[in-house]
């Protein structure tokens, strides 16, 4: 009974704002700690070189986490937007809008570190590798979302139009990924190289997971901070905003 009440209570911007404010320092601390452990492990507890790959392979300890975050955050955005469309909750749309820049940032970093990785292991900065290309398209999807959001002045239309765009994009992502990965349908199956997680050396796996968690905790910090800004801007006429300590002075 109490749990149900709490859920709906925090679905309003007014009650989520202070809650988010309290959560941010904890996520920041968690992120810092995980980065410390993750970086230490990545550089000192993993093998110096990996068979043919020299020390540059350490780049994967930042490349993999940011790539996963770029993809994960898009998914989370879609979910929040869908919730907003179904339940008509303003806060869900605000959350989706808050996630976009961070998601785009990680996608960009994924492309950057991916290009650097490509340069070191294959010798070229960019070679239209299917995964890199799909990732570039993901960046376009993020940018499209943010562009549509800012092009529409009316908040309600903006939220719902961007939400629909996200859902259409989400539906097409597998098709787009597949078409880029597999431009010749007749000989597609050979391209999948499954590298099961079980086969990765223990320390490397630990370092990667820790770094991923660190990046994830960080994303909470930036997203919640941005969400609070969005709430303040959208709810600026409400009484509770006027009574906030930082505003009322």
């Amino acid at each position, binding site marked *: 009974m109490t749990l149900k009440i709490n859920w709906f209570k925090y679905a309003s911007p007014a009650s989520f704002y202070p809650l988010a404010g309290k959560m941010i320092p904890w996520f920041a601390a968690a992120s810092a700690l995980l980065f410390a452990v993750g970086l230490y492990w990545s550089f000192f507890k993993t093998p110096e070189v990996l068979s043919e790959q020299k020390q540059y392979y350490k780049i994967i300890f930042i490349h993999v986490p940011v790539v996963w975050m770029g993809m994960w955050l898009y998914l989370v955005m879609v979910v929040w937007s869908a919730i907003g469309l179904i339940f008509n909750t303003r806060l869900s749309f605000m959350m989706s809008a808050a996630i976009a820049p961070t998601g785009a940032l990680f996608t960009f970093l994924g492309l950057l570190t991916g290009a650097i990785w490509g340069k070191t292991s294959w010798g070229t900065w960019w070679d239209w590798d299917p995964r890199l290309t799909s990732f570039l398209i993901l960046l376009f999807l993020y940018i499209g979302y943010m562009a549509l959001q800012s*092009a529409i002045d009316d908040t309600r239309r903006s939220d719902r139009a961007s939400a*629909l765009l996200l859902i259409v*994009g989400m539906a097409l992502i597998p098709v787009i990924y597949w078409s*880029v990965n597999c*431009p*010749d*349908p007749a000989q597609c199956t050979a391209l999948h190289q499954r590298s099961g997680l079980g086969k990765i050396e223990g320390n490397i796996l630990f370092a990667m997971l820790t770094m991923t968690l660190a990046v994830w905790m960080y994303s909470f910090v930036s997203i919640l901070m941005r969400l609070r800004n969005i709430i303040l801007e959208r709810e600026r006429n409400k009484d509770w905003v006027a009574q906030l300590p930082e505003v009322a002075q």
Partner: protein
Amino acid sequence: MFSVFFTIVRRDVLLAMRRRTDVLTTLFFFIIVVSLFPLGIGAEKNTLRHIAPGVVWIAALLASMLALERLFENDYADGTLEQMLIAPQSLSVIVAAKVLTHWLLTGLPIVLIAPLVGLQYYLPSEAVVTMTQALMLGTPVLSLIGAIGAALTLGLRGGGILLSLLILPLYIPVLVYGAGAIAASMMAKAPVQPYFMLLGAFLILALIFAPWATAAALRISSE
């Protein structure tokens, strides 16, 4: 349901015929873009044959997108769209009718003029046939998906550029397999059938889902 469908198709085609320049501009845009590549890249036969599949599809993408802005624009401006929204007939059917008209006026001309492109790019006849067939399957998908974007960006300033930004990533599968089909037809041992099956699948899926998504987008844009 069908009478609504055909009434709208007839109406839109009539309206477009009265302003024939719109239809012709899109077609000429396609022709110009296609003609620019040899000028920019050099007219060496083998190079042209090589890039033809991609060039044709990119030109078709861009031409289709140019015309999309006007898909709902006129109806939005004169209030007809509002009537469509509150009409008892299904909005998806109305949308499907409008998209069909859009394709008849932009996609179909491109399909018909494709052999000319084959000539310009020194394509063998099997390739030209494949190209026409692939365009036939693919251009409706472009119109269908593009309609979603047109509905989302209805009435916005900077509409055309924004529309391209939103829609072009979604066009990529059609581009990849459409161009791939033509390229495969020029290689002795490559089967073209799988490409057509994929393009056909895209068309069916787009026919089922796109009008519905476009109708939803129209409602969102007109509230």
